[in-house]
């Protein structure tokens, strides 16, 4: 049933909200700008460094969660038996987690705001001939590299300037292309509604009016677009069933989907897919990573996919009727899925025009 709902939007890094309480937001509005993004986690075995038991770590800590540290800053200190032992941070960052059980601290190294432009490393720029350049390359196409990893083993070595994926190793032309894996340093509303509160420094609550549905599994991140219900019964959705124009649309089908249809959706810049099921074989063809391992936002695909019923079977009749009822409505999808502790299921929010009394702030 449609009703007023509170949607929490959270920044993943330090930043500022660009909206105020009472402000109306649309789904494509940027509501926050982040200064930096959460980067890699570095584990520091603090208890080992200071020769102490994990159970007594808390009293020896000099930092707490959320504390900013520079490289070399003291994390913990032990002064037993006239001996000073310290544990220093090997990287700059923010203390993300303190484990009193393992006796270690996790430091998150924030990624600086960066362009999404690809980084080109060429033999020409390094004053090398192409043969030597190809010999010195230490990565292969598809590798995900950390910032600082050696890409070309020359003197001095050429290292990755950012966390990214090796898009291309072109030995013939003496070229290496690195695609930075930075996410957008902006937080988009993805829903339309009214900002009602900021319960935490990094969280914004938006009141929306609509209907919420939950899927079984999801792949990819968040998206919002117009609901495009494709009624082909419970049979497999093929390219013939898809409408000619898919830009800005989130396609819904009751059954499963052919891999050609997925390819077409990608070409036509569809914004999402909600289907009854999708066979693992089709998913494996379409996804760059193993779909059995990389669920939710960990899978990098062009648009989010939500499976309402799992790997096989059609969508529940009642759910299908809800989608049919709201054909053409604005829909917000979040494919985030986590199956272990703190289970998260993908969410579909059909955003509707509020009743006549207007939106309650």
């Amino acid at each position, binding site marked *: 049933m449609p009703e007023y709902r509170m949607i929490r939007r959270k920044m993943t890094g330090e930043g500022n909200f660009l909206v105020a309480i009472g402000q109306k937001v649309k789904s494509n509005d940027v509501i926050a700008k982040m200064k930096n993004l959460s980067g890699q986690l570095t584990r520091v075995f603090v208890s080992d460094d200071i*020769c102490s038991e994990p159970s007594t770590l808390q009293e020896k800590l000099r930092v707490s969660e959320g504390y900013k540290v520079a490289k070399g800053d003291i994390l913990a200190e032990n002064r037993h038996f006239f001996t000073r032992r310290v544990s220093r941070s090997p990287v700059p960052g923010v203390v993300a987690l303190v484990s009193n059980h393992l006796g270690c601290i996790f430091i998150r190294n924030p990624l600086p705001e960066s362009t999404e432009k690809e980084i080109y490393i060429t033999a020409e720029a390094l004053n090398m001939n192409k043969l030597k350049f190809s010999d010195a390359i230490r990565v292969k196409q598809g590798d995900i590299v950390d910032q600082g990893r050696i890409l070309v083993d020359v003197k001095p070595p050429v290292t990755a300037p950012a966390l990214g994926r090796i898009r291309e190793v072109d030995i013939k032309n003496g070229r290496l292309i690195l695609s930075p894996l930075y996410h957008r340093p902006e937080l988009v509303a993805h829903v339309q509604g009214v900002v009602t509160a900021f319960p935490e420094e990094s969280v914004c609550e938006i009141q929306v009016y609509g209907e919420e549905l939950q899927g079984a599994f999801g792949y990819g991140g968040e998206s919002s677009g117009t609901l495009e219900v494709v009624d082909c019964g419970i049979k497999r959705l093929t390219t013939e069933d898809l409408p000619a124009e898919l830009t800005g649309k989130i396609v819904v089908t009751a059954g499963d989907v052919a891999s050609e249809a997925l390819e077409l959706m990608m070409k036509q810049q569809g914004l999402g897919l909600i289907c009854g099921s999708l066979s693992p074989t089709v998913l494996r063809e379409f996804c760059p990573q193993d779909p059995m391992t990389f669920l939710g936002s960990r899978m990098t695909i062009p648009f989010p996919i939500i499976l309402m019923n799992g790997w096989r079977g059609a969508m529940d009749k009642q759910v299908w009727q809800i989608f049919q009822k709201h054909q053409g409505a604005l829909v917000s999808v979040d494919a985030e899925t986590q199956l272990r502790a703190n289970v998260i299921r993908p969410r579909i929010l059909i955003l509707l025009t509020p009743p006549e009394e207007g939106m309650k702030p």
Partner: protein
Amino acid sequence: MNTTVISLLEQTQTVPTMQRIAQRLKLKPREFAAAVAFCGIHMTLYPLWIHMWGQLGVELPLQMVDTDPETIGHSDTPWKMIVFSCSQTKALLHVQTKGFSDKPDLFQKMMIHPFRQLIESLDDDGRFVAYAEALPILTDIGCSTDHNVPLDIPMLSLEKLESQFDLWRDWGKQMEPRLYAWLQQHKGDSVTPEKAIELYREFAAVLWQELLQKKIIQAAPLPTGWFSQLKGFRKEVFHGTALLQGDHESFWYRHEKWK
């Protein structure tokens, strides 16, 4: 400087006092050597040293050893000793002094996780789980690397040491006026905390040498030849490393404020 600290040794009558303590404690020779290092020099003499110099206006740091690689590795320091935790009920003490286990990098090596794990795994019979990375350190401290052979280091119960601690405390009290008198004679104008700590180290080293020479303690240098590896020769010889068994954290909290 040696002559200076020898005069302190004579003035404070430390060696005969140690002889008396040895007779009363009735510990095995190498256990007594470890007890002298830990209870005597580390836990009694150093706090007393801080207290006495404090009365003369020289404030010494409570931490004599800093495990920072830059400061721990000075091989010319005459006396180096460290006590570090390996588990809640096991702490290891390690002594290095002139001619007696002089390996500056050993301190850092001993604090690595596999070695601490090996010590943690020790049972009452000295049997342990052999961790590959820790085995070379066993050789460095003069022990067999065969995991079927019990670890040959003295094991001291902190509970027992604590029950005998009054003897060390009494020694400290005896030392107090004598040490104060001597320090007043030798304080000079330019004594810095660093110099005062260096003087303490010199005194500890000289005391150790004297106790060895008078055969009050047995702490032979690390074996260097095949002959010295013979079992009979190594019996009851303290190689600089001993295990302290018991709740060392609470032991420390009870004793850290002693003056």
